[in-house]
């Protein structure tokens, strides 16, 4: 048997293509990913076969399995305006700084009176707060805070949409018609439907009729 001659040179591996590949993937994921916003509650929405995308701008109503309601608005400018309306309606004072903080605070499930104290907290402490949900009352809907949130949000969204449209027209710029703030409901699959019905009833009272129910994706059955 002939002797196997070992190569003299050091066994080296060129890592450059691997680095190239790895960074390519990093770049891809960095550019395509959107980060999950911090959520005060975890909800597991049911799945459906629809393929409609979520609207670009939403007033998000999150309902967890205990029936707590959280609200959020993806448009910070409108969110600030709605908060100012709410401060007027429920006579809660907040500083300009707090209003700014609120716009970036994510979903909130508190009554108006406890929002300033919540905003004082550090961001990582906020997640520890057990939020009771925005109060709503099915007997006296028009006095409930959820009703006022819905009502003000509907008016302000409309106002904001028209203002932006006018602005775009004035400058002769193209305008994206799909940026209208729509109402989206994200509820846990285990939530009792009657609870959801009550929440929707509050919104219907505020003349919000059109809802986007957020669902997970499910494969379409083939015929």
């Amino acid at each position, binding site marked *: 048997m002939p002797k196997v001659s070992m190569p003299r040179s050091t066994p080296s591996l060129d890592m450059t293509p691997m680095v190239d590949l790895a*960074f390519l993937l990093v770049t891809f994921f960095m550019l395509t*990913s959107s980060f999950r916003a911090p959520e005060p509650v975890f909800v597991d929405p049911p799945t459906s076969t629809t393929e409609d995308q979520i609207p670009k701008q939403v007033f998000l109503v999150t309902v967890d399995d205990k029936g707590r309601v959280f609200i959020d608005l993806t448009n910070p400018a409108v969110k600030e305006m709605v908060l100012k309306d709410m401060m007027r309606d429920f006579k809660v004072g907040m500083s300009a700084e707090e209003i700014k903080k609120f716009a970036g605070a994510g979903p909130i499930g508190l009554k108006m009176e406890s929002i300033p104290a919540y905003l004082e907290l550090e961001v990582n402490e906020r997640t520890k707060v057990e939020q009771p949900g925005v109060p709503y009352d099915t007997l006296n809907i028009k006095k409930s805070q959820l009703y006022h949130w819905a009502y003000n949000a509907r008016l302000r969204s409309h106002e904001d949409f028209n203002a932006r449209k006018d602005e775009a027209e004035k400058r002769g710029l193209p305008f994206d018609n799909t940026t209208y703030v729509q109402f989206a409901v994200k509820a846990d699959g285990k939530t009792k439907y*009657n609870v959801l019905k009550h929440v929707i009833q509050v919104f219907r009272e505020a003349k919000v009729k059109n809802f986007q129910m957020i669902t997970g994706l499910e494969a379409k059955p083939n015929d």
Partner: protein
Amino acid sequence: MAEIQSNGGGGDGGKKRAKKQSTKVDMTPLVDLAFLLLTFFVLTSTFSQPKVLRMIFPEKLNEEDLKNMKQPEVKDGITILLTRDNRVFWYRGALNEKTTVLEETDFTKNGLRKILVENNLPLLTQLRDFEKEMNKIDEKDTAKRNAVDAKVKKAQFDSKLVVLLKNDEEATYRNVIDVMDEFMICQIAKYFAVDEGMAPLEKKLIAQKLKS
């Protein structure tokens, strides 16, 4: 390191030369870093945007209208009843103490979907024909396309089948979405989620079924 230094210690004396420095840069830490970042982004990114199911609710009625409104009743229809433990019942036609027979079904392909497809067959065959017609038409021929669209709308409007969805206190949101989804799949043209929930008789029938 990716390279193994096999240059043994001192040679056998001789001239002292400047050591030959390798020009290769060790890439290994860079790879480590890149993959670390990669893992981070893969794990934190939300891949697919959630989908939405559109639901339109009628405007709130005032007290007087509510008083004058009666429970919806359908002759050529199906009523689906949702109750606890993901159980689902259905019956055909108008509610009647003597003739209504409640049947249990489930959310599988052979359950609810079969019932809905069987009952919606007239509309489904019509829609399939329209689809074939549509496929024959040239993409740019909007006039003809609109004409077919109008036919589809008319067929949906004329569809006899009405499906009602009722729930009791125990039914979950998941079940409702599942049923709505079935409506979409089976292309039911007319369906309503009944606001008032179940009638007392329906509750009684379900209670009987659940016991047995």
